[in-house]
């Protein structure tokens, strides 16, 4: 054994295993100063998390993509064409005041369905996955050990989810065009409205999910008693004004109604006073910013003790 490789003489591992050049591995010179890395992370940490989220989403791309295409089709055919035929035969048009200015039911319900389905999808994205991040799969703890901050993880997760909804809203909008259900030249604005509504509901939901430390039984409750009522009573299928006044508050406090009304203005030029339009926008922005602030705080608390 005279010609044995002496460089391995001290190794206690099995003979012949490949040893990477550890000095290079430990310090190749390719890593900048800590101050430089920290500065990058302070500015872009949220985006690094989004990048991770997107790489992760690649695994689901096909199924999410299919869902994004099939779901608007199903809704538009069933509610727009099926139910719409019935409605249009019965009352002529909807949404107009005093019988004039109304539109076919498909046009009325189309942009609202865009908003409502996006909000329903939020219910899947910012509940159980948040719990997985903290607890079940401990996914948040990986970036936590790096220069990325808990606040940035919160914003990054929301940001990744919102990118999904940019796509989902865009696909839905294209479907509306194909169904001739978005006559206005401004109908593309339904896309940012859909995303803003997703944020307005998603950010507070994310904060709530982050604050739960048990197994997330509450999410079924959220599904049944928050998301479903919003879907049914927040002006998606019929104007809020046809409901008794004592039920209309469900619409007023839900992001879905505010988003829906904005989407209708964009899609077919539904008429509303300017102040109300501003209220819609303000409510959505308020929900979003309060939600983000709470989520950031909760993430910092939970990942810091």
């Amino acid at each position, binding site marked *: 054994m005279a010609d044995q490789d002496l460089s391995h003489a001290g190794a206690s591992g099995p003979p012949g295993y490949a040893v*990477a050049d550890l000095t290079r591995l430990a310090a190749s010179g390719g890593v900048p100063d800590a101050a430089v890395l920290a500065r990058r992370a302070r500015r872009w940490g949220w985006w690094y998390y989004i990048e991770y989220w997107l790489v992760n989403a690649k695994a689901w791309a096909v199924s999410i993509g299919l869902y994004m295409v099939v779901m608007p089709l199903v809704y538009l055919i069933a509610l727009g064409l099926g139910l719409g035929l019935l409605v249009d035969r019965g009352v002529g048009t909807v949404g107009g005041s005093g019988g004039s200015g109304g539109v076919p039911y498909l046009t009325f319900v189309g942009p609202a369905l865009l908003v409502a389905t996006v909000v329903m999808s939020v219910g899947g994205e910012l509940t159980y996955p948040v719990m997985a991040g903290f607890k079940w799969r401990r996914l948040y703890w990986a970036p936590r050990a790096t220069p990325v901050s808990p606040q940035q993880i919160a914003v990054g997760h929301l940001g990744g989810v919102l990118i999904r909804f940019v796509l989902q809203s865009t696909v839905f909008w294209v479907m509306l065009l194909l169904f001739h259900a978005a006559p206005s030249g401004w109908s593309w604005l339904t896309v940012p409205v859909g995303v803003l509504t997703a944020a307005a509901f998603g950010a507070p939901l994310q904060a709530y999910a982050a604050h739960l430390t048990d197994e997330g039984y509450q999410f079924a409750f959220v599904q049944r008693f928050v998301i479903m009522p919003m879907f049914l009573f927040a002006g998606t299928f019929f104007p809020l004004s046809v409901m008794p006044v004592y039920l209309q508050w469900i619409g007023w406090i839900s992001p879905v109604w505010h988003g829906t009304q904005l989407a209708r203005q964009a899609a077919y030029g539904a008429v509303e006073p300017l102040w109300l339009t501003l209220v819609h926008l303000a409510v959505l922005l308020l929900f979003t910013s309060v939600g983000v602030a709470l989520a950031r705080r909760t993430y910092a608390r939970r*990942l810091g003790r």
Partner: protein
Amino acid sequence: MTSRATASTDGVVASGTQAVIRAVGLTKVYGRVRAVDGVSFEIAHGESFGLLGPNGAGKSTTMRIIGGTLQRTGGVMTVAGLDPAESGPEVRAHLGVVPQEDNLDEELSVRDNLIMYGRYFGLPYAYLRPKADELLEFAQLAEWAKAKVGDLSGGMKRRLTIARSLVNEPQVLLLDEPTTGLDPQARHVLWDRLFRLKEAGVTLVVTTHFMDEAEQLCDRLVVMDHGRIMAEGTPRELIRGYSTREVLEVRFGAEHNAVAAERLADVGSRLEVLPDRLLIYADDGDAALRQVAARGLSPITSLVRRSSLEDVFLRLTGRSLID
């Protein structure tokens, strides 16, 4: 003496080199539990430092305070002169962390786990792609690069977590029970590689409740229990200071141990009665065994061995490290 003597406020450790990590009176209180209770230590650049202690001793809590991912209740903590609670991103930029529990993304490929983790440090893909391949080589996972992490065995995941901690070429590596779940061969390979990393200038902080690991890996260590440091020194100093050179282990059967212990109280310098055996501490174990025989006692089994950190721990706490 070749080491630099500095007058820095960062603190100076025994050898004279500058402390890269310094803790003074560190405390962490959870409600009524004092998880870390006034712990002080200094770790020199390039040193391999161990936290040895049983479950619940406060090892992981201490590690997280060093990384600044856990808010301490009191005390002073500096890493490379910075307070991790204030300058978390700066401290963690050159820190490698192997957490006690793996937090790999099981849905992602092995290689993507390395690359996306590297992104969190603001490192560009041009650096990360070749780096990931080197790290896979290091972890002996090159053939698994495209596999989903969920398909790996527990030991392979552990190796991947360790490889991941090196993606930013850390100057300080925090290893919380690094070899849990590794088979004996993989443990030895890892010890060897950690030793080489240390030779390449990386400072190692290791927690473990395996005394062989502590003896193999650590230049210096503290023995922790109930959030406090019981003793500090090199493995050899600790063994010399708290134990005898050799230990005689004798078994008389569970019912007879106590009776035998009474008759052997003055053999050797100290006697420990464990549920299943007696430990007789003596510098000459064979001589002690002859004394046992001279008293007319014939143990079922007997064994003379060198003292280990386990004995140090038993002496300090009256308890075994691993039950």
